[in-house]
């Protein structure tokens, strides 16, 4: 009697075992138009807070104006971080449930475009409009000289500092180079706070390495060069700062949350972050009664930063009618009025020449000069690696860095080993 019961339970558990292999992702989306002839499309976006508000508000505005006139209705759907969004997009494609429009982190555009998942946008974006985008932002938009992504919420990493703490420590200016950064950080020790806090974020290491004349991968993206002199100096600078200059390294997966909390509690005075979180950071500072300053990322040799953020893309496999509707939405989202709106709302870069010449933006910079830093820094901006293997190679790199910053591991040796495996990955995906 007991035995049959047990057998039953075992069978159930066997069934559970079988489902180990089951690894699916279900999305329920229909892109079909209703009886009313309204074209229903889905738009995927990343990130919460002000960025989400921005996406939802602009989508709503489109639906209320152009969408209404043309019988188009767009539904904006949140999909997590860029990594989450890319993973979901991949599965959605296999299941034929992909959205019509999506944001896409600029480094991933080539991967998706060469897999035939994206629609070239050359015929939908006028030459005049294309020429209006800031040239520093267009590097990651083209694959095989076709336009696949339109600059949308674009950023550079910038240097944030707590002005209130700076005043208390008698520091009048943001550091411009590494030496000043180390000195200022040391000075802040007297207040009992950490000077420079940094995360295990590949984008930030790209920035610091570029600022020292190096890079993470070679120009043809087939060789990892983050173990070369320039990159190694950047790592040694940080490691040295941890020992001698009151730096703090935030490790672990929830490190960025911890860093945000410490910023809020004024336990750390300087950090790197995307310009896209500027308005949020200013808001938080305002509520907690301290002031935020922004500046160029202090450099080792000369200013140079990667750009980042997302472009807006259209997926392939749409009907002509849907393509036209999606193009209308993409054009709307990247028109001057919306560009200015997004910039003010989030802190992401204004993406067009005419936008930065507008009176509205000029007035904003007059009032809140922190917004202007990323734009000024953009003259030193360049694209990100687009090799399909870069995500994996970057993980090898940041894993080695984590080891370097948390143990006595020799930086040169750790980076050499990591560069070997990263190069292998990049070669595979040439």
């Amino acid at each position, binding site marked *: 009697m*007991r*035995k049959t019961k*047990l057998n039953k*339970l*075992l069978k159930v*558990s*066997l*069934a*559970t*075992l*079988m*489902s*180990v*292999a*089951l*690894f*699916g992702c279900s999305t329920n989306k229909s892109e079909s138009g209703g009886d009313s002839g309204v074209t229903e499309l889905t738009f995927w976006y990343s990130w919460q807070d002000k960025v989400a508000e921005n996406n939802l508000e602009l989508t709503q505005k489109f639906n209320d104006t152009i969408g209404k006139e043309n019988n188009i209705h767009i539904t904006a759907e949140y999909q997590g971080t860029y*990594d989450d969004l*890319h*993973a979901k997009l*991949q*599965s959605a*494609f*296999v299941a034929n449930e992909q959205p019509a429009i999506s944001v896409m982190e600029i480094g991933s555009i080539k*991967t*998706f475009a*060469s*897999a*035939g*998942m994206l629609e070239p946008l050359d015929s939908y974006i006028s030459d005049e409009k294309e020429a209006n985008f800031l040239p520093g932002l267009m590097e990651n938009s083209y694959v095989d000289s076709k336009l696949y992504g339109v600059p949308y919420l674009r950023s550079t990493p910038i240097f944030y500092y707590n002005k209130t703490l700076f005043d208390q420590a008698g520091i009048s200016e943001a550091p411009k180079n590494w030496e000043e950064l180390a000195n200022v950080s040391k000075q802040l020790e007297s207040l009992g706070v950490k000077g420079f806090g940094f995360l295990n974020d590949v984008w930030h290491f790209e920035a610091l390495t570029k600022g020292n004349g190096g890079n993470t991968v070679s120009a043809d993206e087939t060789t990892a060069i983050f173990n070369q002199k320039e990159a190694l100096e950047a790592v040694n600078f940080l490691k040295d700062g941890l020992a001698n200059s009151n730096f703090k390294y*935030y*490790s*672990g*997966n*929830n*490190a960025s949350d*911890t860093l945000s*909390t*410490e910023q809020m509690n004024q*336990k750390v005075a300087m950090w790197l972050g995307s310009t896209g979180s500027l308005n949020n950071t200013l808001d938080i500072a305002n509520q907690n009664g301290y002031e935020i300053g922004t500046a160029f990322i202090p450099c080792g040799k000369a200013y140079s930063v990667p750009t980042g953020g997302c472009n807006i893309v259209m997926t392939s496999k749409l009907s002509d009618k849907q393509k036209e509707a999606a193009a209308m939405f993409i054009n709307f989202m990247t028109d001057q009025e919306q560009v200015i709106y997004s910039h003010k709302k989030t802190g992401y870069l204004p993406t067009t020449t005419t936008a930065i010449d507008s009176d509205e933006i000029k007035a904003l910079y007059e009032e809140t000069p922190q917004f202007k830093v990323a734009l000024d820094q953009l003259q030193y901006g360049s694209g990100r690696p687009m090799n*399909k*293997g870069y*995500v*994996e190679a970057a*993980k090898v790199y940041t*894993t080695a860095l*984590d*080891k370097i910053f*948390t143990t006595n591991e020799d930086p040169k040796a750790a980076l050499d080993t990591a560069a070997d495996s990263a190069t292998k990955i990049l070669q595979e995906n040439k």
Partner: protein
Amino acid sequence: MKNELLKKAKPYLFVAPALIIFLVFSIYPIVSMIQLSFFEWDFISPTRLFVGFKNYIALFQDSAFYQTLSNTFVYMILTVGLGILFGVLLALFLNKKSKVNSFMQSIIFSPYIVSLASISFLWMWLMNTDFGLINYILSIFKIGPIDWLGSPKIALFSLVIISVWKTVGYNTIIILSALQSIPKHLYEAASLDKANRRQTFLKITFPMISPTLFFLTIVNIIASFKVFDTIQIITQGGPQNSTNTLVYSLYEYGFKFYKIGYASTIGVVLLVIISIFTIIYFKLLSKKVHYQ
């Protein structure tokens, strides 16, 4: 004739719904996974490249794979061992019918019904190095701060703690019901023979609950091999791959690094390991388990 055919087909018709679901959602994915493990494919390109055993060779030459494998086993042994040990202890402790005990039972069981995602966020906060509750309490006793989730030496054990905390209530309830179904006359006989408490436990209690422990061990082993949610939310396999397990690295390769063939290879390895465990259990242990 026609009736005979229907008669023969009837049982199959009855099991058909279950069978179809099983074929579509269990057998087909397994077959498809094994097939994919011989290809190089990014999951999205229209073409896939047949590469034979290349993925297997690469996998067995990859030192990261062995770390993942060892993480998976360490995690499995600790969660299953501790989960059952504490389950037995708690069950013995609660094995008396009283109002306090049934209240305690429901408290111990409650983590089991909370979703893993919420539990993960809760523990992330509790285990935060700089402002977490655990480190705050430890600091009162001048211990720490311990970098629960940021240190490669500790992070895996932190995940074990979370998993044991979540599953121990389930184990306790199951063991408790087994304890309570042991016939009283066995204990009466033992006390007539003047058996001491240790003897009573080893000769009566333990053999009588061993089928239950056997069942729990299998269920827990399989569950611990499948660990994903907590890793995805809390550590993402880090720091330095110290919490990367087979299932998480499968996800990482398949959905983040665009290598579905390689990911399938990991899936096949996982399938083989779990099958071996199941076979060992059925062949060996089931003979030694006492059934009433």
